[in-house]
């Protein structure tokens, strides 16, 4: 069976600076792949490239075996099969919670407004936010906003979820509720590619951990191996710094 996502030899440069230097990553169906690495290692850029929000300098991105990075492909159509959750939530502040969630199903997927609303309310209930449906995002806590953002990304049943450091902008006491939700998504068999600084969480939910450094995929494997007994020197140094900072 082909993997849901195949990233082949991905190269991305900003001017002279090479952010991603030939990265290969695969994510199989129901697999949770976690990207770790220092800030500036290319994790977020990789996720943006997968979502076709950046022009690639080289390489290919295949979604369900189709090369979506081909310039002749319609990027909007490809993005509809992916759900993205951002570090800063990025909810639409002029729309209520439920309208944030139903926007894509209604406008992009042609779903009937009543049906979309019903589905959105059911999804919001699953994350414990049914009573916030008609509230506006600025009335919600960071953790609540991020849970809404996750529901928004799930509302059109994407093949692949991309989570970009989704707990980094949260107050520490709100991190738990978001991670619990991600864990339940992983257990429900969602296909997820995520970047995170939460090493403990990565260890719990990841099927595979990929360590990026300077735009290169240095090491990848099961979390117990990469996080506890890494092969590469650079991985060991990174983990030592993380432990010194009290993050593992």
């Amino acid at each position, binding site marked *: 069976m082909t993997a849901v996502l195949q990233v082949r030899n991905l190269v991305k440069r900003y001017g002279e600076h090479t952010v991603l230097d030939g990265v290969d990553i695969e994510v199989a169906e129901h697999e949770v792949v976690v990207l770790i690495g220092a800030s500036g290692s290319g994790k977020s850029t990789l996720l943006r490239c997968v*979502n076709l*929000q950046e022009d690639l300098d080289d390489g290919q991105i295949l979604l369900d075996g189709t090369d979506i990075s081909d310039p002749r492909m319609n990027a*909007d*159509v490809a*993005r*509809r099969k*992916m*759900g*993205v959750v*951002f570090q*800063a939530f*990025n*909810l*639409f*502040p*002029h729309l209520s919670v439920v309208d944030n969630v139903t*926007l*894509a199903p209604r*406008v*992009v*997927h042609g779903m009937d407004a009543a049906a979309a609303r019903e589905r959105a309310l059911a999804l919001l209930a699953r994350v414990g936010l049914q009573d916030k449906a008609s509230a506006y995002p*600025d009335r919600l806590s960071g953790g609540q906003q991020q849970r809404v953002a996750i529901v*928004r*990304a799930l509302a*059109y049943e994407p093949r692949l979820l991309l989570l970009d450091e989704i707990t980094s902008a949260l107050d520490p006491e709100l991190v738990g509720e978001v991670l619990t939700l991600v864990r339940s998504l992983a257990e429900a068999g969602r296909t997820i590619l995520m970047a995170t600084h939460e090493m403990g969480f990565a260890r719990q939910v990841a099927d595979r951990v990929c360590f990026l450094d300077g735009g290169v995929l240095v090491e990848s494997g099961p979390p117990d191996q990469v996080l506890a007994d890494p092969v590469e020197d650079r991985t060991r140094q990174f983990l030592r710094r993380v432990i010194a900072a009290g993050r593992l």
Partner: protein
Amino acid sequence: MAILSTLVFAVAAGWAISSSPGWPRVRSSFFDLPTVAESFPAILAGLWLNIRVLVVAEVLILVLGLGIAALRTLRGPVWFPVRALATGYVDLFRGLPLIICLYLVGFGLPGLRLTGVPNDPVVLGGIALVLVYAAYVAEVFRAGIESVHPSQRAAARSIGLTHAQTMRIVVLPQAVRRVLPPLLNDFVALQKDCGLISVLGAVDAVRAAQIAAAKDFNFTPYVVAGLLFVVLAVPCARLADAAARRLARREGAA
């Protein structure tokens, strides 16, 4: 207290003006009550023309301004000619004095003797107003569009919206809300500039005042027309204040 201090100030100012040596002459040629009564109906009829021009022009200005702003925010090298054209338009009509634009459109356009070109001074004056004001309003809209954080665009595209859908559903509603106060400000400015169509011969409030003033060399009709324009502008100015306050509250809460 506020009322009392205002009153004291008004009385002092009134005394200063009315005790000036030229006051009796000024009063008879600018504030002559019989002339007010005589010229009022014609000026009011003229003002009604101004109001109609104002409403039609404002609608066209908003549409044209928004269109130009949207064109200026297109990205990518393919759109360079469109962007350049829109930028050129804004540069030209923002720099061109309104009165000169009125002359060029009002006397130049019909001078071409093309079929289908209107020669009604009201229509021509309206066109000139739209051309100039659309350039200002386009810049206001553009500032609004660019004030919406790029992450909003990224989020909208990530859920599969096209560029056009992103603009229409996500960017513009937020942008318009933010620029409502400056838009209302431009609307107030347009209100009085509508009086300039009189230079093309349209019988609006200013022209009606001019005709009445010429009859017996009394400037009172101008004062009447001026006050009517002020009365027209006041509700709009208060509306602009209220919009700005509401926005400040919203931004404060966010």
